[in-house]
């Protein structure tokens, strides 16, 4: 079967890969590019841990055909920290004990980033809405909501 050449930006870097028709973006990122930060959870859009940003918009990479991102810009958790410095959201997640087993964390952070990028000072309800497509089984969500609000507050005062 012939492969499809595919180019897109991955965390600010141009990448070129060959994918089989029907390959989803999650598989392309994990197996062809080697970015293991988007996680495979349910594989059918029910858990949110594969979330990535496509041109700044939150998407489930397991439900996105890789071919559809040609020429577009993909952001994953792998690109979030700046050199040795954690992103304010990552720092806030650590400070607020917003991760336990950590499996949902990549998706939570991307959902939070998508929110704060378009709404730097969200209300609690807006934070809840923003992460409502992401399942967490350890934290009870409250520490995650608090972490996102803390990151937003810190950014506002900085």
């Amino acid at each position, binding site marked *: 079967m012939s492969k499809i050449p595919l180019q897109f930006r991955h965390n600010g870097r141009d990448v070129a890969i060959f994918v089989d028709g029907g390959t989803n973006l999650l598989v392309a990122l994990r197996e062809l590019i080697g970015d293991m930060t988007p996680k495979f959870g*349910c594989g059918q859009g029910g858990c949110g841990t594969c979330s990535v940003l496509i041109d700044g918009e939150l998407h489930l990479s397991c439900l996105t055909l890789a071919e559809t991102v040609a020429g577009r810009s993909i952001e994953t958790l792998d690109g979030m920290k700046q050199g040795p410095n954690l992103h304010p959201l990552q720092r806030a997640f650590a400070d607020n*004990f917003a991760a336990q*087993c950590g499996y949902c964390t990549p998706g939570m952070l991307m959902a939070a980033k998508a929110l704060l990028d378009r709404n730097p000072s969200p209300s609690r309800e807006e*934070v809840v809405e923003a992460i*409502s497509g992401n*399942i967490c089984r350890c*934290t*009870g*969500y409250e520490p995650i909501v608090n972490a996102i609000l803390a990151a937003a507050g810190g950014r506002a005062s900085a």
Partner: protein
Amino acid sequence: MTRHRGRGMASINYPIGMNLGGDPSQALVHSNPSGKFTVALSSIDLGQGMKSVTRQICAETLGVPVEDVYVDTADSDTGPHCMGSFASRGTHRVGNAVMAAAREARGVMMEAAAEELEVNASDLDTDGRGNIHVKGAPHRSISTKDVAIAAQFKQGKTISGRGIFLVPLSNVDPETGEMSPATCYAHACLVAEVDVDDETGEVAMVRMDSAYELGRALNPRLVEQQLVGGAWMGISHALYETPEPYYPDPVHGPRDFVEYLMPGPGDICPHDIAVLERPAPDGPFGAKGPGEMCANPVLPAVANAIFNAVGVRIDDLPITPEKVLRAIKAQGGARPQSRR
């Protein structure tokens, strides 16, 4: 349609660990020539913080900085045996094993230091910052690193310790059925407030107030993390989750996260938690365990709150809207109970 507010309370008495085979766990502690220590376990840290807490326990027992201890765990090929991370047993069982191992390693470390300083080991103490000194004479000291190097290259000593914690097996009394399943119990009381919609049968959490007595909280933030997350799981068990909604008939079981229901971030409620610290006599530094037990009081408290709100007593979990509606219909309408 009316939404009825109800309040329910529940108290629990929760055994830490279990009775099977004495529920043992083992730990090994050894020093490296750098003066740092490695704790070898096979216990699992699922994110609950077992590695952090055993690290604290080891450092405190050895008398060295917490940064000087590394916990190597989760592989039963390389670590000594552990029964597992369940039954709120990690801090208590594994912590006790680590404490015993660290105590033995400390004994060897002090002997090795005594040989270098030419004093009696009983005259030595640790400063918790990586030094061992003569009691009352802090200037006569040696770093744990130099002790580790001397033990390794000069004295030919292994600074190490073995630890196991085993509760003697309690047999069932054939006359009374009585037994003592655990040596240590945690306690909790939780008050739940809910709104029950008598048209849809939906139950919404309004707030929770709880008090947990779990011995000494060795790491208060980790304890709080367990209590907050565990209460969510309690709500989930009480109102949402089941693999077999029509048990024992397996049909209509959930196949994915769309059908296997759990409360989302919009379904939680404010939860005010008080932690009471009453050190356990046989716990490591008085600790019990905040794991599994933190989910438990939520279930009966929510069931009681639903009874208080609409007068139906549902004893089958999870308490789904369908069950609430059928029960309300069977008694001819909602019957709010008195609130105190």
